[in-house]
């Protein structure tokens, strides 16, 4: 779309490290906390008389993994939808990289560098795996209607690069199926992976994962943990909604606990584990996990 990003892609796009090349910078185990990325302040979401989110505040820094947990119906997904622009908060604000996101279209929020996955995998059903990931590069692809109609060299160049990048992301998430297949032909675990690859292909600074572990078996969950860490190593901030406490405790640096739309705790996994309010919310509520 814009000239600037195209230029920056051109100059930086090829410094990608090929596997095996020795001069690739090795990942730092835990990068220092970066700049403030996302700041949710006193967010309220209301549906008719139902308060889905009732005063939620938290910050996410670059390269940080935060989990939002809470019993079913606690308002986690509503909060996600609000941050990503699908719902309008009835009160409060969402700041991302210094910009106010409230009233912004979800697509513009994505363009700013925030990507998400959905609770129930939502891939484009009648498109191939590769096309699904390529779709995520839409707003960066320098290819106008005339290029497409006339198949100009620029079209071929853009498409080739786009395919290569999509394949790169698929390999990154460990996709092991046939990328030419329709996504509906894939097993569930692979679909989850494709969804993450698709979100990464938007080149986010912050990635919101909505129950990425749901429906995965043990080994798939282990792979997911590895993948989440790998994404963090790229410097991407991650916000995670998850029910699997094992996964949450293992991967998160900080945890925000919601109950009935209200934030009841915010702290490190260790603090959360021992917080009486959290224990009460989980045990006092109908058994959830």
């Amino acid at each position: 779309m814009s000239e600037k990003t195209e230029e920056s892609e051109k100059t930086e796009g090829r410094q990608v490290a090929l596997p095996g090349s020795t001069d690739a910078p090795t990942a730092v185990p835990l990068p220092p906390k970066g700049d403030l990325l996302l700041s949710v302040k006193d967010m309220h979401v209301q549906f008719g008389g139902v308060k889905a989110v009732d005063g939620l505040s938290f910050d996410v820094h670059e390269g940080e993994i935060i989990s939002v947990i809470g019993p079913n119906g606690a308002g986690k997904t509503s909060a996600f939808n609000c941050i990503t622009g699908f719902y309008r908060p009835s009160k409060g604000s969402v700041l991302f990289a210094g910009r106010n996101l409230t009233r912004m279209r979800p697509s513009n929020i994505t363009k700013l560098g925030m990507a998400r996955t959905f609770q129930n995998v939502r891939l484009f059903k009648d498109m191939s795996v590769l096309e699904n990931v390529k779709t995520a590069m839409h707003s960066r692809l320098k290819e106008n209607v005339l290029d497409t109609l006339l198949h100009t060299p620029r079209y071929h160049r853009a498409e080739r690069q786009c395919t290569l990048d999509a394949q790169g992301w698929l390999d990154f998430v460990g996709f092991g199926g046939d990328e030419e297949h329709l996504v509906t032909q894939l097993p569930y675990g692979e679909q989850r992976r494709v969804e993450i690859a698709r979100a990464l292909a938007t080149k986010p600074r912050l990635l919101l994962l909505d129950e990425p572990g749901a429906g995965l078996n043990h080994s798939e969950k282990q792979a997911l943990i590895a993948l989440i860490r790998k994404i963090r190593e790229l410097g991407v901030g991650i916000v995670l909604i998850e029910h699997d406490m094992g996964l949450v405790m293992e991967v998160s640096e900080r945890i925000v606990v919601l109950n009935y739309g209200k934030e009841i705790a915010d702290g490190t996994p260790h603090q959360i584990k021992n917080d009486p309010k959290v224990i009460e919310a989980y045990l006092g509520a109908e058994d959830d996990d």
Partner: protein
Amino acid sequence: MTQLIWNGLFVGSFYALVAIGYSMVYGIIKLLNFAHGDVYMLGSFTGFLLLGSVSGLLGTWSLPVLLLVLLLSMLFTGTIGVIIEKVAYRPLRSSPRLAVLITAVGMSFVLEYGIRQIFGPSPRVFPVRLAGDPIFFLDARITLPQIVLMVIAAALMYFLQRYVMKSREGRAMRSIALDTQASLLMGVNVNKVISRTFFIGSALAGAAGVMAGAYYGSIDFLMGFIIGLKAFTAAVIGGIGNLYGAMLGGLVLGLLESFGTNWLGGQWRDVFAFACLIAFLSFKPTGLLGERVSERM
């Protein structure tokens, strides 16, 4: 002025009768039954056939015979409505919306051109033409048949309102409209209720068809197209899915049309009505009585 209001209300009550079926079906299964206008046309032709077979009785017993024919036609169109739902829409209930809409367009074609094969492409003259000496009320020219038809329409709507709001079956309908899954879990026989809804909606459209035939005197196989579109407009104006909304929307559309025609000229009547539809959908898609539904993902 009074004349315009009266004309508007009269035409509006037809729109309301057809709009109710549209709105009820939409409220329950979120389907725009595109073939609904054609069920109205089917009602006209059923009435045409039935009246033709009892034409000997018409002279003296016009009104009672007409009522009986009305009832029989309602039963017939109601049954057809149920069959349409079973054959064309039920197999697609879990399909994407686009597929069901296209099926509805196909169904509309089947009805229209099926009738065309039976009755031919040219308009038919209805055996009864309700006409009467006008009476003047506040400068408005009102005929007796107009009053009778409006009374019938009002009575049908009244019974429907009682049925939906007071009866057990009506409660089941409303519960499905709110949440199909939950109703299923509560032991509501969803398929049966949907069938019943199609029956009622189609019967009302059929009734409107017979009455329109008797009033205007001429019927043809494409007559349902415009009224279907108008009824949808009425349903949207009132707030689709809302029973009172459909009734109100019908009357409002009738009035709007009546005044709009007076202002712009008769040839712009339909253009004006559809412009109203687009205006409403653009600026107030929930209609006059519709609730603001927050679309949850």
